[in-house]
């Protein structure tokens, strides 16, 4: 099983994502200017400041050649994980509902957070137990999840709200404490916190982030088998 990790000018978490993915499978960097996804079984759109976050975070990266291929890959059912800036890119690409707005406190904020697994029956969370609390860091300025009221209701009914900030942890003002969402088909997932920074005891406050990558590996394995 091979993960492809996109790399844009301005990405800064692609190497951590690459290392995290390589703990559970093979992993390779994919340059934004190339359309070829090199046979990857799953794609990670990493954190950072793609194209300087000019205009809006993710707005320009969404039109890169690699992303055009990722959009086709996602429409064919391929697994796509977007972390932080990657989540913003997937929203801009309309692969995920909603948008990420500037934090309610207007500040860049870095915190280790507790996240509740709302839906443990997704390709990205199946290694977690329902309502498990994950300890994962977040670091961003534009992380306030927003979607229209009716969209939020539909997402909630369909199980698309995958992760919520635990009580007291929603520092960015996300609607309904939403930290991570998936698309209706369940093959595209985005979250603002960084599971790739929580995979090793030496460098993270927990290893809970590994559960996301392990879930993806198991999901790809079951599709291939």
């Amino acid at each position: 099983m091979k993960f492809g990790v996109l790399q844009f000018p301005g990405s800064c978490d692609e190497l951590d994502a690459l290392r995290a993915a390589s703990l559970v499978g093979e992993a390779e960097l994919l340059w934004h200017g190339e359309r070829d996804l090199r046979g990857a079984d799953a794609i990670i759109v990493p954190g950072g400041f793609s194209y300087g976050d000019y205009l809006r975070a993710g707005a320009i990266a969404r039109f890169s050649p690699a992303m055009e291929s990722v959009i086709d890959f996602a429409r064919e059912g391929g697994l796509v994980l977007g972390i932080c800036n990657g989540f913003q890119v997937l929203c801009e690409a309309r692969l995920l509902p909603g948008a990420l707005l500037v934090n309610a406190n207007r500040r860049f904020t870095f915190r280790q957070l507790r996240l509740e697994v709302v839906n443990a029956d997704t390709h990205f969370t199946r290694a977690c137990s329902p309502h498990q609390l994950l300890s994962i860091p977040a670091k961003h300025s534009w992380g306030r999840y927003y979607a229209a009221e009716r969209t939020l209701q539909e997402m909630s009914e369909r199980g698309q709200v995958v992760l919520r900030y635990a009580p007291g942890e929603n520092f960015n003002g996300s609607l309904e404490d939403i930290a991570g969402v998936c698309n209706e088909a369940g093959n595209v997932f985005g979250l603002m916190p960084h599971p790739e920074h929580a995979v090793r005891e030496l460098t993270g406050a927990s290893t809970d982030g590994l559960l996301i990558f392990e879930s993806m590996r198991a999901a790809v394995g079951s599709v291939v088998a």
Partner: protein
Amino acid sequence: MLIRPKEGILDPQGEAVERALPALGFDGVANVHVGRMVELEVEDEHQIEPMCEKLLANPLVEDYEIQLIGSAETA
């Protein structure tokens, strides 16, 4: 193009400016919203709206307004 947060969407930047103005003695200020402006020259003005829809604004969360200033014929 003038691009601003849609009505009803929290605008922390606008709120911060609204709180700062009275501190400088400017009273009676309300409904401050901060957006952005994009200026460009274009040959076919019919392209402007699709540009806004596709890239320059995010219609989920932003409204935009187009102002045409002069044209090739009048310049």
